[in-house]
């Protein structure tokens, strides 16, 4: 039987506020246990929460970016359950009146087609602490540093139809929150994690199948693997006449399998009710407009602009706009590379832009990967890279020599002009010198010259190669070609 997969994601994004959502404690990652848990985070008797305005602003930014409705009145509710990492015995979250609702996000599937995923809601809530299960003589240790960190929970409609789609959507949300600068998106540190609701149904069936929820997926790869595994598990159950149990499952990446965490019967009765310690959050159209003007250019718009303005291919645009830092690096490089060609009608030289894109996607990205560096900490600045591309464009160096220049810049030998001068890499364009070189080579390889004259065109490449070698790569290849052809004419 053919099955259709139905997936909805709940993505938890830690917002990059300096202080916690309801207290003035710091949010820095990696502090010694419980040193960033203040009286409010610990839920000491008598303490009260006060909402961090920045968390609200960041949530609104996200809402605007997904063209959602921003609630003019939003309410915090208590979600009541007991767990050691939840100090108050309730989590302050939002239930009936979330700050963001009914948004949408377009994703591009692997076949190049576009699909819009509905976002049901995004609400603010506080993160819980961490349970550490290392051996404390059979006890569990509780660290509440993370407790109270601002989270935005982004809930999609069940509109994804494959594990791959889910991963693409998750990546898109990740790109977006980084563009908006509302989260560092660091998945190793748990700033961006996701729960997946997965069900399958016979193709063509309108009714949804019983779903399971897979908890705490903290990488794109795990999301895809866990969902794939879960789809197979459900299919095996249904095809052998069984029934899928509605339950919460945990993904174990080491074994690549999911296992039951709790069944529906054990599900909590959360007893949501409006938090009486917090008042309604009122957001005026004026507040929203003030935030709207601060929105950066969003990924889709940037991608379209790159295609139009720089004449980049869709592939290059996708790559360069995948995150804001790369996009910025590219634009700075292209602008530094630009010299004489710029004009009002053509602000960018397409060739320069293409060269910039190629170098970033080629040499630079290889070097960054090799040294495990982020583009923001690249030893080669966009200005330096642009300077090098300018020298390729004005024929000071060839593309081949550029590789040497890049390596030298990476190793801290200075900017392109300095390196070209100190290493004597300037391209030889003096036709007298080049003619002498060409003549030398013609004399050295008479057999090859005869072959060429007999119509074996390919031999030309060999001869050019020899000339280039003699010039230590500095000869202008085009000029060499022209002179050689001229001299070999019968």
């Amino acid at each position: 039987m053919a099955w259709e997969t139905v997936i909805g994601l709940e993505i938890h994004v830690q917002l990059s506020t300096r202080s916690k959502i309801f207290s003035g404690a710091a949010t820095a990652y990696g502090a010694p246990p419980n040193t960033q848990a203040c009286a409010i985070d610990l839920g000491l008797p008598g303490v009260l929460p006060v909402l961090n305005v920045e968390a609200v602003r960041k949530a609104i930014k996200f809402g605007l970016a997904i063209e959602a409705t921003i609630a003019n009145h939003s309410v915090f509710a208590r979600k009541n359950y007991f767990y050691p990492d939840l100090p108050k015995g309730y989590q302050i979250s939002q239930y009936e009146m979330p700050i963001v609702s009914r948004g949408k996000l377009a994703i591009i599937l692997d076949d190049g087609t576009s699909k819009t995923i509905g976002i049901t809601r995004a609400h603010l809530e506080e993160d819980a602490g961490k349970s550490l299960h290392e051996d404390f003589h059979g006890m569990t240790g509780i660290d509440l540093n993370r407790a109270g960190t601002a989270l935005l929970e982004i809930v999609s409609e069940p509109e994804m139809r494959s594990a791959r789609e889910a991963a693409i959507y998750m990546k898109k949300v990740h790109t977006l929150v980084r563009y908006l600068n509302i989260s560092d998106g660091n998945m190793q540190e748990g700033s961006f994690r996701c729960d997946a609701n997965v069900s399958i149904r016979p193709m063509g069936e309108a009714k949804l199948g019983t779903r399971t929820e897979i908890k705490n997926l903290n990488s794109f790869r795990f999301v895809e693997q866990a969902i794939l595994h879960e789809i197979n598990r459900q299919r095996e159950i249904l095809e052998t006449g069984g029934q899928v149990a509605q339950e919460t499952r945990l993904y174990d990446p080491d074994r690549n399998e999911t296992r039951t965490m709790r069944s529906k019967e054990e599900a909590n009765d959360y007893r949501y009710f409006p938090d009486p310690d917090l008042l309604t959050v009122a957001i005026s159209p004026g507040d929203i407009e003030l935030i709207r003007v601060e929105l950066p250019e969003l990924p889709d718009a940037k991608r379209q602009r790159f295609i139009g303005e720089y004449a980049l291919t869709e592939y290059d645009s996708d790559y360069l706009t995948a995150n804001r830092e790369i996009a910025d690096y590219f634009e700075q490089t292209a602008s530094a590379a630009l010299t004489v060609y710029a004009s009002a009608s053509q602000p960018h030289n397409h060739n320069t832009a293409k060269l910039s894109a190629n170098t970033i996607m080629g040499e630079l990205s290889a070097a960054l990967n090799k040294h495990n560096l982020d583009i923001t900490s690249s030893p080669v600045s966009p200005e330096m890279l642009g300077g090098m591309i300018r020298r390729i464009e004005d024929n000071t160096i060839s593309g081949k020599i550029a590789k040497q220049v890049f390596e030298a810049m990476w190793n801290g030998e200075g900017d392109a002009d300095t390196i070209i001068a100190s290493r004597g890499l300037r391209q030889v364009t003096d036709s007298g010198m080049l003619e002498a070189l060409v003549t030398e080579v013609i004399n050295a390889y008479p057999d090859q010259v005869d072959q060429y004259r007999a119509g074996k065109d390919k031999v030309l490449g060999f001869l050019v190669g020899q000339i280039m070698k003699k010039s230590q790569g500095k000869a202008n290849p085009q000029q060499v070609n022209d002179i050689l052809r001229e001299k070999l004419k019968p």
Partner: protein
Amino acid sequence: MSSLDKAEIQKIAWLARLAIDEGDMAGYSRDLSNILKLVEQMNSIDTTTVDPLAHPLELNARMRPDQVTESNQREKFQACAPAIKDGLYLVPKVID
């Protein structure tokens, strides 16, 4: 009219993480049933057109700026903790 039986009392007690002794069960059942009887007087009035009121003054939230104002006071806060080790609060092993 609601009257709570033993199973319901146990269910509520578990949600509230309270252990009720067998001997107290009847007392809780009686008291809670009486309280519900009292509060069910609310049903004498139709409120379908009335909005709930969560806060008497119905004010809007005032928010705080995003500033770190608290410093580490772990030692002081943990002075009254029942069980700690290496700065962590200890509880019986949690099984996920």
